[in-house]
């Protein structure tokens, strides 16, 4: 009995030794990419699932060599990628434990994803410690690359500062007569940061306007905004800024709409894009809508082959137009392909990082320049539009879309976002 066990163990050891040696000698046929996203909880519907769909769709197309040129080569450096989908819920600490499992137990080759800023913030140092090639897809906080220099961590979309600076610029351009503004943002890091950036920017570019002293910060997932809507209705401000997302966003739109809030006030929704396709007729006209960059409804009319392929394929598979998160995850997967194509399918994390650092590439909807954070943080344009229901086609569209170049809404390399805005956004090229 004991002998048998011993032989078995030796056998396994020998096989794995051969496999290991083989892996080192030849390019891999398959690689594993872990894609974390919200699969449970309130963020799953509006963010997690579209994101995962986008990632899977792009991965499948790459595996089959079906992406439009110039990405029509098969695979990731020739290797087929397996996607491991996993849930991003449960808090940053839990995600740290899961991340370690991904790297140390499940031995994934690359990790591409994450929506929550809290998770990205917590995982960046872990990724560095474990020397694991990681691309953050959607999370927004600027702190990740401003606080420390990263070697293995990338982010392929602009950070949240751009969302709110662009929002303020759009407001200045379209509503020059606006006198006062207020805001309703969730009381956690995302909402607090968003309001601060928007408020600081307006102080700079529209110094004659005044922020309300009664800005609202309800609890995340509160769902009931009756009192807040009353308070904002009574407020003198004529503009409302919100970074609400998901269920809170939709509940706020329903409740505010029923009470005529958006008829009296201009609503600025920095993450409103995710709701545009889903709410249909229930979305009020005249909202200022962002999508955290050039994604989703804002770029529906862009005619590039890559963009049209993305929209049409997504609509074929999932029956709905792709929203921002689908784009963001899709382009992060694309970035992984570019890195693998350059470095080879057997590349180490170090080689992959070298391959991606500082490059500029054409993504589905926009050009991505990895030029901030020492070449680890993307700079992209950012834009807004105004909602209108197109009764002919029975769907929402945005009009008056305006995009601001990255150099206009993001701080130059090496500068902290908040300091940059406070300092009058020096060096911004609009």
């Amino acid at each position, binding site marked *: 009995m004991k002998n048998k066990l011993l032989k078995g163990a030796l056998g396994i050891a020998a096989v794995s030794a051969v496999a290991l040696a083989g892996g080192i000698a030849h390019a891999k046929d398959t690689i594993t990419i872990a894609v974390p996203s919200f*699969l*449970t*909880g*309130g963020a*799953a*519907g*509006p963010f*997690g*699932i579209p994101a995962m769909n986008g990632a899977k769709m792009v991965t499948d197309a790459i595996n089959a060599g079906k992406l439009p040129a110039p990405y029509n080569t098969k695979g990731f450096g020739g290797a087929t990628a397996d996607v491991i989908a996993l849930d991003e819920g449960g808090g940053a600490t839990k995600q740290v434990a899961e991340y370690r499992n991904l790297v140390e137990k499940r031995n994934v080759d690359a990790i591409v994803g994450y929506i929550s800023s809290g998770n990205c913030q917590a995982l960046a140092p872990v990724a560095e410690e474990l020397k694991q090639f990681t691309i953050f897809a959607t999370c927004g906080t600027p702190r990740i690359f401003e606080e420390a220099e990263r070697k293995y961590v990338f982010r392929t979309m602009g950070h949240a500062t751009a969302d709110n600076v662009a929002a303020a610029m759009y407001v200045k351009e379209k509503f020059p007569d606006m006198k006062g503004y207020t805001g309703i943002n969730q*009381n956690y890091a995302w909402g607090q940061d968003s309001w601060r950036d928007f408020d600081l920017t307006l102080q700079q570019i529209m110094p004659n306007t005044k922020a309300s002293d*009664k*800005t*609202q*910060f*309800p*609890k995340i*997932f*509160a*769902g*009931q905004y*009756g*009192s*807040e809507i*009353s*308070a904002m*209705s*009574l407020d003198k401000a004529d503009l409302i800024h919100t970074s609400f997302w*998901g*269920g809170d*966003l*939709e*509940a706020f739109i*329903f*409740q505010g709409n*029923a*009470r*005529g*809030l958006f008829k009296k006030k201009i609503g600025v929704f920095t993450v409103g894009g995710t709701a545009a396709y*889903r*709410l249909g007729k*229930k979305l009020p006209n005249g909202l200022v809508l962002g999508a955290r960059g050039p994604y989703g409804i804002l770029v529906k009319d862009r005619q590039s082959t890559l963009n049209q392929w993305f929209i049409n394929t997504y609509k074929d598979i999932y029956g709905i137009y792709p929203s921002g998160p689908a784009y963001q995850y899709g382009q992060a997967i694309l970035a992984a392909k570019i890195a693998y194509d350059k470095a080879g399918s057997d590349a180490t994390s170090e080689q992959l990082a070298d391959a991606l650092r500082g490059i500029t590439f054409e993504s589905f909807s926009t050009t991505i320049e990895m030029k901030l954070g020492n070449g680890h943080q993307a700079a992209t344009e950012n834009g807004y539009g105004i909602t209108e229901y197109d009764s002919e086609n029975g769907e929402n569209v945005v009009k008056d879309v305006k995009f601001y170049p990255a150099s206009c809404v993001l701080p130059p390399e090496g500068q902290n976002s908040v300091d940059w805005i406070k300092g009058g956004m020096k060096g911004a090229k609009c």
Partner: protein
Amino acid sequence: MEAALTILLDGLQFSSYLFIVSAGLTIIFGVMKILNVAHGSFYAWGAYTAAFFIGKFSDMGLPDALGFLIIVAAAIVVGVILGFIIEQGILKHMYERDEVLIVLATFGLFLVLEDIILIAFGTDPYFAYQPMALLDSVELGGITRDVYGMTLIGVAAVVAVGCWWLLNKTKWGTLLKAVIFDREMGISMGINVPLVYTLTFIGGAILGGLGGAYIAPTISVAPGLGTEVIVLSFAVVVVGGMGSIVGAAIGSLIIGILRAIAVHELPQVELFVVFAVMAIVLVFRPEGLFAPAKPRKI
């Protein structure tokens, strides 16, 4: 004056919401001494069921007014089915065991029910705005208010009066009070305590489901919506006194009105209202403001 009216209405509306979601929790606790963590799941199931059918009926071209019927039906169906299955299938077999173990069992149930919702309804949110759109809005105190939101106050009043009437004006209520005061006494008086338990649990579940179903038209019905409700209803019940209906009503009013004042006058402190009230009550009166009398043993 107008501002005061607005604050009062906002406060009442939020208090009503709090009361509806916490009434079922406190009733179940009062009678059965079970802190039902799965209460949030009843809320979620009520919301999903209502939203699902309101959407379906609307798609079929049926009149939107049916939505109100669906809301009540959803609460009853969810309460009866889930309440019955959980009480008969699980809790019934645990009454001999430690009360705290029962809390844990409901915690386990909560985890299971959360994921079953995900499997049954998917991750995409459901919208059931039709009943709210139907009732339109009015100008009141210088601002627009949606009528649907204000009917919440009526629903809460009906629930409160209904509970009061049931407890104080019916034979059933007398039996229930005997069981609440002392289970052993109830048994010795010949009360069919297992039946009382089953019906109480179903009743509490219906109230939980009603909370979700009634709120559904004003929100996006999405995964995880039950979690928040557990915390809120628990806070109300702790403040009011665990197991006391009057306590739940007063607790809801205190938290709801203070919160409305904060939102209007000093939004920075709004977030701490619930917890501040809870902390103060815990320090000075840990058993809550209206803790029901306990029988003396020995």
